[in-house]
């Protein structure tokens, strides 16, 4: 009898609990696999690609993909107007999108969390000023503001990333501040305060970990927004500059050939769509797994 009473059911580790809920969502798992493949291609692109991404094969310009008449296995997805291999360019291009996503989310999230924590803990007037500034940034359509910022800084992928990070940051500030305000009133924070925890400890060690769930979901979603916006800026000629094989820039270069060579337009866009879709699927799964309100208990 004493034996059974002693077997206390241990709470599973947070990671295992997370995986348990995440696995329930089949779409999210598929998204995770596609994202893993994307990350792999992004990291090892130049070693996987069959050709150099900028090498021009002048005797094979605008060659169709292999399954169409005139295509060959040398260039499985065809070639662009300058005779560059589409497949190689797409593979090497993955790293730009991946890089954009990582950098933008890191900058926007770090900045946003810091400012949001500050707004949540600072006196009322500081909070008001910060939130009004965020309102001002949010009043501009994000792509337009990014476009104007890039016009000021000069068109390049780095400046596009900075601009997109600035535009995405207010979302993190709002999310963090809202979570901080609701957490701050809870008993465990009061007890930490009574126990003598200083403000930095209260902010970063006591409160922040409990605000992370919505921020992680937001990070996944803004990863895809960053990729889309960077591609849009590239498409408008304000992002990565040719001959960089960035997917949006590739689309812009291919625009005049849309009616003659469907493959130069179709594949870069498809690459963007599949990547963004995979990340959004993952984001939905993350939300289901991390949001306690929606958890099936």
């Amino acid at each position: 009898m004493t034996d059974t009473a002693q077997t206390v059911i241990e709470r599973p580790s947070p990671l295992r609990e997370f995986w348990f809920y995440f696995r329930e969502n089949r779409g999210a798992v598929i998204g995770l696999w596609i994202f893993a493949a994307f990350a792999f291609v992004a990291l090892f692109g130049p070693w996987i690609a069959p050709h150099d991404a900028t090498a021009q094969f002048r005797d094979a310009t605008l060659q169709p993909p292999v399954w169409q008449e005139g295509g060959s296995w040398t260039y499985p997805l065809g070639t662009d107007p300058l005779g560059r291999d589409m497949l190689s360019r797409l593979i090497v291009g993955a790293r730009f999108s991946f890089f954009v996503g990582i950098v933008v989310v890191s900058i926007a999230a770090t900045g946003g969390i810091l400012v949001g924590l500050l707004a949540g803990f600072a006196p009322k007037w500081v909070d008001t000023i910060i939130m009004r500034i965020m309102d001002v940034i949010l009043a501009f359509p994000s792509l337009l503001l990014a476009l104007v910022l890039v016009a000021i800084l000069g068109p390049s992928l780095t400046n596009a990333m900075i601009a997109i990070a600035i535009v995405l940051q207010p979302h993190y500030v709002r999310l963090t501040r809202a979570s901080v305000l609701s957490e701050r009133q809870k008993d465990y924070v009061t007890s930490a305060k009574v126990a003598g925890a200083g403000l930095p400890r209260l902010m970063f060690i006591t409160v922040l970990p409990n605000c992370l769930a919505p921020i992680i979901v937001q990070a996944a979603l803004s990863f895809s927004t960053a990729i889309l916006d960077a591609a849009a800026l590239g498409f408008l000629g304000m992002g990565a500059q040719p001959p960089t094989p960035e997917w949006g820039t590739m689309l812009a270069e291919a625009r005049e050939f849309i009616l003659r060579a469907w493959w130069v337009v179709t594949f870069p866009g498809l690459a963007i769509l599949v990547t963004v879709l995979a990340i959004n699927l993952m984001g939905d799964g993350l939300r289901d797994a991390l949001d306690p309100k929606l958890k099936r208990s």
Partner: protein
Amino acid sequence: MLNYVLTRLLTFVPTFIGVTLISFGFIRVLPGDPIVVMAGERGLTDERYAELATQFGFDRPLYEQFWEYLTGVLQGDLGNSFVTKKPVWDEFFALFPATLELSLCAMIFAVVIGLPAGVIAAVNRGKFYDRALMSTALIGYSMPIFWWALLLIIVFSGNLQWTPVSGRIDLIYYFPDPTGFMLIDSIASGQKGAFGSAVRHLILPAIVLGTIPLAVIARQTRSAMLEVLGEDYIRTARAKGLAPGRINGVHALRNALIPVITVIGLSVGTLLAGAILTETIFSWPGIGKWMVDSIFRRDYPVVQGGLLLIAVAVMIVNLTVDMLYGVINPKIRKR
């Protein structure tokens, strides 16, 4: 209610000042000397430089310059375009109807398809229709719309030859445009075929622009409906023996619409951002294309003024949505 309206209006003022500050600062953070940039002349002599500095007001303290800018803005003075020499204000309002028409049609497209799709998905939760509709919505939500536009052009303009690739109407038609809305003006002109031509020009851009709002509306409607369908009063309605169509269509949808309307209102910003891409691809003579062209031409007064007017437009729409939200949802007024 009056209290709610007043507090909401009060927050409008600082945001408006902030927006004008950003647009005011724009010229001053450009790389290079703003006076040289604004003058657009080469080899400025020192005297000419000083003269221009006085003319543009750069010799005075910043706060005075800002005050002058702010009062100018409130009187509709945003300066003149470098390229056309016409006032930015006039150019904006000449092109605005084109963007408004496109955005309205895109929104109608999004609501007419997105709302029923969300309701059908919610009612069939977990079944085939739900999964099919929501997968499609997620694809639409992830769509790079500039690529989507190119695909539609390949299929409908290239292969099928159904729609033209650019502009608002065929060049053979010419008529006055009292409303600025091509669909209305073409009917008013009474010219045969003009309306059809306007519709053919509008349909692809409207679909492209409406795609992401459509996906957002469908997803939001579904989740709002699911929430409402779990409420007690829905169970009561079922117990009373009401027809499922009436329960879903009247009892549930009416309450589910509240968050959906907010989403519709808030997608105006998305819509204007999307208009930049859509108008550029379809050569639609609206605000988005005007802004992109001005950025490339380095027509700074236009970029500055356009940025401000677009932000104010978005703010006014958001304010209106908030007010409407207060009217529809009494809970919010008390806050």
